[in-house]
């Protein structure tokens, strides 16, 4: 499974994930306090400048990941134009794009392992309270492993459908997909149990 981390190695890739997330929280909160178009435009320009720093490949990937907010930009601007407060609409739109861009930047510069390690550290207080977070750490790789499996299986089902029917495959494929997923869950559950079961110790060490 391909993560959204950028293959272009930046200096920020090596910064601690916790630091980047903390900075993201602070900056996002700060963005909400900026008044007017000028400040918000400056903030967005600053964020886009950060995108440009590692080079054109990184910048292009970053801008591509921002494309999903474009429909909202169009809707927001049209909406505010209709209600007659376009300046406020422009400020809000700039802030929205800056917020998404900033968050994407953290995702693009943080390897998946760092994120998983951060989750482990953030859930440490829960372990101290006696909650079993080991189940969470077991479930994360299972999802990463089984998503492509289910996607491939859905494609196989769609192929089998097309070989037999002239109609397009649709929601009918979801039933066999669900049944197979439930069977998989039973097998995985048994396999986990056979290999010593889910870690259920209440230890508090990291």
């Amino acid at each position: 499974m391909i993560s959204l981390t950028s293959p272009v190695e930046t200096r920020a890739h090596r910064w601690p994930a916790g630091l980047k997330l903390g900075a993201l929280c602070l900056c996002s909160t700060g963005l909400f306090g900026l008044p007017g178009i000028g400040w918000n435009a400056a903030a967005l320009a600053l964020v886009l400048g950060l995108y440009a720093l590692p080079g054109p490949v990184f910048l292009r990937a970053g801008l591509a990941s921002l494309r999903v907010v474009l429909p909202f930009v169009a809707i927001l601007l049209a909406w505010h134009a209709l209600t007659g407060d376009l300046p406020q609409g422009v400020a809000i739109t700039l802030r929205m794009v800056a917020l998404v861009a900033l968050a994407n930047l953290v995702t693009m510069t943080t390897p998946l392992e760092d994120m998983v390690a951060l989750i482990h550290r953030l859930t440490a207080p829960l372990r101290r309270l006696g909650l079993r977070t080991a189940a969470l750490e077991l479930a994360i790789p299972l999802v990463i492993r089984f998503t492509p499996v289910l996607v491939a299986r859905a494609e196989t089902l769609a192929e089998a459908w097309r070989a037999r029917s002239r109609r397009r495959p649709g929601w009918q494929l979801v039933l066999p997909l669900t049944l197979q997923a439930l069977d998989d869950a039973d097998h995985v559950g048994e396999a986990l149990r056979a290999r010593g079961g889910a870690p259920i110790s209440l230890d508090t060490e990291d």
Partner: protein
Amino acid sequence: MERNIAQVALFAAMIAALGLVPQITLGFGVPITAQTLGVMLAGAVLGARRGAAAAGLFLLLVALGLPLLAGGRGGLGVFASPTAGFALGFPVAAFVTGLFVERVALRPAGLVAGIGAVLGGIVVLYILGAGGLAIVTGKPLAEAFRLVAVFIPGDLLKAAITGMLVQALARARPQTLAWHRPAGSAQTRL
């Protein structure tokens, strides 16, 4: 225990797969992704707690940077985008759907799952989704709601499909629905 973890993980993977497979599109002309169908199914099949856990696990992986949302979106930007309310509403929607099927003893399993999916996957999800849109865009809630209401017919279709799928599941594999008591075995509890 192990089976529960596996089921939660597999349904999180289902929510992801349903959003990623272009072959499973619903609707007529306009392709509607099946991602929220996965959320409704997680609640209706696994029940409130495990359904919400599956949707929450899915969200966690999105936040970690995996492109699992419909259209290959993912990362922390999702939670700052105008659709953040919908994404964050997934676990709540699955929980409410599950709570309904667990608490309301209506007869055909498909009917109760369908109504549960409407309540959780539409009523609750759209309140949270429109709320998120209103906050991010700085617009009144009513206006935000009018903007997202276009998608309600598609989601009604998904709730109906959830009902049909659960009905078929209850017939093919009744033991997979922990909340479902097949007729005649009302007294036996697993």
